[in-house]
């Protein structure tokens, strides 16, 4: 562990990597702040720009955009009640209320400090857990891999939110889109409709660029906007009471966020909502929440940052993305010829540990930048959105060309943008689609190999203890929403029995 940390520091501390870490977190902060441009959009837009960089440097910058945007998104949630990222939506409650009461600067400070503490604590957890899990997963064969991919899909579906059926539909649709092209392990071209361009399949990152950049930006036009509340430097000072009240929620949020973030597919957004819900139940000041309470800022902020870091555990150790953005980062790994998963730790220790150590520097830079500079960054919110979104479309479409080096990829981005817009418009969750898309080829490979191992029978999945347990957990995860819904309805219909 210590050797790995030293190796990580040696990799992360080179001037080039530090510079791109700084560029990443600053861009991430600005992108996260802009309504409609979340971390997924930021990583997708800037991925083509990093193509000429060394993979470690590129991934350090892209990861910086990811966690940097968590900070930025909070600023816009607090000042205009319109978060750049869904993981900060919950700040629209207490953060925006604090801003309305003249405590915008304090809310920004609490958010930055809680984010930093959560990021550092969860980073320690990430470093401690990722390698043992990867080492454990090294013993996995195709059946175990297949079972763990199914578990990832089941978790994201059950956390899909309002409607589990839509989650299943979108995950399956993502899988279907991933099957376009020549089948993995076969020579059959599927769903190509005679197009040569489709033979090699749709580029995952291009589809993401369309869904997250174009779809989200245009959805923002439909949603409209809000005039920002001005935050001043002198307001950044938080009172002793606010600080005292933020400590416990920050720690609770960090713990909860980390646990939720480790689950494949759960992600930072769910963590922030859950943390707010828990705070609403356990806080001494719960009656003030929703009316500008520091607890309502500290807890979800800590939770979303802890979850963002924790979601790297399944991504790096198992190759199963923990969130939409880590799914895009997984795509970036693949573009650079790297396959996230157990072998990555053994084959590319400098990359993995350099990346993890860069999180520490990145978060430190973010704290130093955000505490005094948040009001300066917030000026970005005063740039009219009418000027911003055409530029986002410009860079997305040029970036699309850079990805595939052909106009066909530009069309893919355009149509994926159309799909992404309608998904947003009609409340179809994007995360299951993304996970289905990224896991599709891995799932099929594991399926074909498992079938070969079992001489055509998939019952081998149940004959091996690890895959059998994982499969049972996946089934439980899938049926959890249904079971809890049935129990909830039963309790509602028979309220008297609860008192017995």
């Amino acid at each position, binding site marked *: 562990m210590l050797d790995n940390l030293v190796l990580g520091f040696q990799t992360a501390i080179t001037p080039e990597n530090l510079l791109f870490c700084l560029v990443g977190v600053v861009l991430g902060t600005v992108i996260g702040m802009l309504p409609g441009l979340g971390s997924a959009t930021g990583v997708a837009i800037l991925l083509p*720009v990093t193509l000429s960089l060394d993979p470690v440097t590129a991934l350090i910058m892209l990861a910086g955009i990811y966690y940097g945007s968590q900070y930025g998104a909070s600023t816009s949630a607090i000042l*205009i*009640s*319109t978060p750049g990222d869904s993981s900060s*939506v919950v700040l629209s*409650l207490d953060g925006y209320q604090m801003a309305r009461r003249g405590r915008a600067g304090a809310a920004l400070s609490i958010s930055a400090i809680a984010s930093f503490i959560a990021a550092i604590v969860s980073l320690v957890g990430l470093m401690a857990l990722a390698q043992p899990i990867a080492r454990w997963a090294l013993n996995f064969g195709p059946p175990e891999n297949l079972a763990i991919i199914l578990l990832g899909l089941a978790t994201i579906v059950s956390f899909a*939110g*309002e409607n589990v*059926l839509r989650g*299943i*539909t979108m995950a*399956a649709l993502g899988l*279907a889109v991933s*099957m376009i092209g020549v089948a993995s392990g*076969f020579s*059959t071209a*599927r*769903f190509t409709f005679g197009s040569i361009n489709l033979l090699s399949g749709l580029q995952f990152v291009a589809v993401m660029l369309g869904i997250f950049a174009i779809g989200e930006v*245009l*959805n923002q*036009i*439909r*949603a*409209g*906007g*809000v005039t920002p509340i001005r935050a001043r430097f002198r307001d950044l000072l938080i009172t002793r009471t606010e600080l005292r009240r933020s400590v416990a929620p920050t720690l609770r949020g960090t713990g909860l966020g980390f646990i939720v973030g480790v689950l494949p597919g759960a992600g930072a957004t769910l963590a922030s*909502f*859950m943390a*707010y*819900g828990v705070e*609403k*139940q356990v806080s001494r000041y719960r009656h003030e929440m*929703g*009316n500008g309470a520091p607890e309502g800022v500290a807890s979800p902020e800590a939770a979303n940052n802890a979850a963002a870091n924790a979601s790297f555990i399944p991504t790096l150790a198992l190759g199963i993305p923990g969130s939409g953005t880590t799914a895009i980062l997984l795509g970036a790994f693949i573009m650079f010829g790297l396959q996230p998963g157990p072998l990555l730790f053994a084959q590319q220790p400098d990359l993995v540990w350099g990346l993890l150590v860069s999180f520490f520097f990145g978060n430190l830079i973010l704290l130093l930048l955000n505490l005094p500079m948040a009001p300066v960054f917030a000026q970005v919110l005063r740039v009219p*959105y*009418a*000027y911003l979104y*055409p530029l986002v*479309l*410009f860079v997305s*479409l*040029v970036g699309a060309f850079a990805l595939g*080096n052909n106009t066909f990829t*530009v*069309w893919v981005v355009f149509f994926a*943008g*159309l799909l992404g*817009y309608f998904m947003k418009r*009609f409340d*179809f969750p994007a995360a299951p689609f993304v996970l289905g898309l990224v896991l*599709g080829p891995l*799932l099929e490979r594991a*399926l074909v190999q498992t*079938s070969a191992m079992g*001489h*055509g029978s998939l019952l081998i999945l149940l004959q091996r203890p690890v895959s059998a347990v994982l499969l049972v957990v996946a089934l439980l995860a899938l049926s959890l929403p249904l079971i*809890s819904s049935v129990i*909830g*309805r039963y309790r*509602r219909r028979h309220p008297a029995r609860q008192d017995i």
Partner: protein
Amino acid sequence: MPAGRTNPFKDGVCDVTGADEPALAEERSGPSRADVIGTAIVLVVGLVVAVMGWGYGFQADNGQVGPGFLPVLTGSFIVVASALELLRMFLAPTAPVEGSFMEGVEKVEARAKEELARAMAESGGGEKEELDVFGRTHRQRGRAVQLVFGVMFVAILLIPLLGLLLSMTLMTFVILRFIESRGWLMSAAVSAGAFLFFFLIFRLALGLPLPTGMLGLV
């Protein structure tokens, strides 16, 4: 705020515990046409995936998984889930979150959305409460999205003629001038600035061979 919903912020305190829960349940009185059509389209897509998948071969000759196995399975999942969703829309039109373990999360999310809607209404001001910071009404915003998609579509079609960077510059100008109604000078200046910036990044810094089209300019 939609009719029939209570204000969760009444008395200045946001209640996210679900005290005014019936409000959520009342939200849906029946499926919207768009919802039904959208889900039906997804169902048809699932059917196509399953049928085409069957054609690729469900099983290989040696009895192992064939190239059509996963498409058939996936397509079937889409068909079943969409059909159940359609049934749910007509038979159980209340909010589907009721009683589920995600209910608490959904409630917090719903309150946050309402807070955003309230902030937007306040930003627009009293008599123009329908207008957002773009100065557009809800209907105009929907139309703007259609126009932007149209302009993007034409701009991509023009790439073989004008080249990538010039097409995108033209797209930016048209959006700014004609959809966002910015001045001629400002629209031209921003478009030219964008062209220069992205030319420097993609062409000079990254050295990407961007298509110059039939004009062959840049």
